[in-house]
């Protein structure tokens, strides 16, 4: 579903990803762990198509298509969803308006018809309820004044709403209390299906107790330096990155 080959990415003149290769099959959940500043968010942004990240080498294909050639909105319509580490606050745009606009934009791009306001409202309400997102939050401006945890829950609500085929979760677990963490994990697990894939970026083994990954990759200094099954997370938790990095070096 997603094939990343020898990916090199720079921001300005600064190389950040230096030859990253990764492949995800439909139905799989992959986790990426790695020290601060190793390039995890950079990878997620590049997948979502944020400007300012120059791909200097390598390729990204998504369902056989060159993903890098598409603008962000088309990627979204094709099922790529990024839950951001730092969701953006947009004053003046209410959350509900935003959700409706986004949902219908994606549908339109896919050649589907718009959902009417009531249809969207019903859908959003249903998802909001399971994720403990209040009506009041939906009326407020997008992410403005939301707590860290509330922002993350809203990201997951969007994931549930848009039903993406490739979901990238960038540290969605950080800043969440235990209950919220479970809710988020449930949301993710609910979406797990043979035709969907997920890339979960996290610092904590704890999340992986709830969302059991098929494969774990360790990203350091812009490259995948270790890979393994679920047990790798436990090892990292016990020994830290130093240990693994030393092994590689």
């Amino acid at each position, binding site marked *: 579903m997603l094939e990343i080959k020898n990916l090199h990415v720079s921001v300005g003149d600064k190389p950040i990803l230096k030859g990253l290769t990764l492949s995800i099959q439909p139905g799989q959940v992959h986790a990426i762990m790695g020290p601060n500043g190793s390039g995890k968010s950079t990878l997620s942004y590049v997948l*979502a198509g944020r400007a300012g990240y120059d791909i200097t080498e390598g390729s990204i294909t998504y369902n056989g298509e060159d993903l890098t050639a598409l*603008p*962000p*909105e088309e990627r979204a319509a094709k099922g790529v969803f990024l839950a951001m580490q730092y969701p*953006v606050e947009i*004053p003046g745009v209410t959350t509900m308006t935003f959700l409706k606009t986004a949902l219908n*934009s*994606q549908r339109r791009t896919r050649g589907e018809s718009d959902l009417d306001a009531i249809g969207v409202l019903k859908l959003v309400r249903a998802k909001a309820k399971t994720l403990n997102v209040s009506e009041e939050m939906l009326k407020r401006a997008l992410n403005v004044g939301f707590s860290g945890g509330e922002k993350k829950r809203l990201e997951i609500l*969007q994931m549930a709403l848009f039903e993406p085929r490739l979901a990238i979760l960038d540290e969605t677990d950080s800043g969440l209390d235990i209950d919220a963490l479970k809710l988020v994990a449930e949301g993710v697990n609910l979406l797990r299906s043979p035709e969907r894939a997920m890339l979960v970026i996290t610092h904590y083994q704890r999340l992986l107790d709830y969302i059991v990954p098929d494969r774990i990759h360790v990203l350091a200094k812009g490259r995948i330096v270790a890979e393994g099954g679920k047990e790798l997370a436990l090892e990292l938790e016990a020994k830290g990155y130093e240990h693994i990095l030393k092994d590689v070096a």
Partner: protein
Amino acid sequence: MTLAVARRAEATALFAAQGVPTRRVEDWKYSDLKSALGEAGIGAQVAQWHVTDLPAGVEQFDLSQANPPGWVIDNFARGTGNVMSAASLALSVGGVALRVPKGAAIADLLKLDFTGPGHVRALLVLEAGASLTLVEGVGLSEFRNVGFEIALGEGAALDHVRVSPADADAVLVEEAHVRLAAGAQYRAHFASFGSRLSRMELEIALEGAKAQAHLSGVSVLDGKRHSDVTTRMIHAVEDTLSTQLFKHVAGGNAKAVYQGKVTVAKGANGSDSNQSAKALLLGEAAEADLKPELEIFADDVKCAHGAAVGDLDADSLFYLRARGIPEAEARGLLLHAFLEDAVAQIANMDQRELVRTELLTALKVIA
């Protein structure tokens, strides 16, 4: 008529001495009135005014009539040193005076329109405890100069909404001088779509404790349009409050101007003032000029201002697009959001919706 003969003479002298402002006059640095008027100059015509369905309880007097009532005599032409306001007084014999008597809360909107070329005066008096929503309409015309005076008695509350439509040729200037007694509230919103030269000038004197003024405005300008909001907020006494929030979007070769001077007089402790002016430039040749000014002569104050000119926020744009919203639509959404907090200041919901609708139309043209 005999009304305010002395004040008219003073105004005539002031205008004769200063003439039509050029760009060399500091306050007119960004609005070239003289050249916008060209050969025709400011003339000496008298412009028209019109009140649609005078709400019950509001008293009206035609300033061109003889024997003005006491409340007109007391409040008329108490003006300032403003040169264009002086011109409107010197050159017009017509205009309208309106009064809401003590304690009257007027639920219906007062709709006051100015039309035609020339000069005109208006006076609005809200006596103690009175309240009103004024909707001011701006008719297009090659040149009009409105001198508006508003006097708010103790505890009076006025909501003022003014929409200035787009026009490539009109030269429209208006000077409003608002005086507030203790506890009075003035809330005003100015939506402007620009003309060859369009200038709304406000001088607001907070003369009684706990008086407060809340100004907001939006302008969406395209083509070669110009819009200038110039405010002067005077915290004359203690415990007065003012806020200002102005948002401009300029496309094409348009020019958006905001000049705002907040003065806190000596001894006006406890004054609280906040001023924010932001502009987005969308056109390659568009221009924004912002000059938020503070003049503070008292120490126990909280005064702040912010100004910003720029483009839409790149992070927000990306966020929206990453959720599937196409770029053009995302930009539109953000433009709206940019203007929304200023529009949300309009208390009257119908008026707020009206302004929103007009903004939508204007933004479609520009974006």
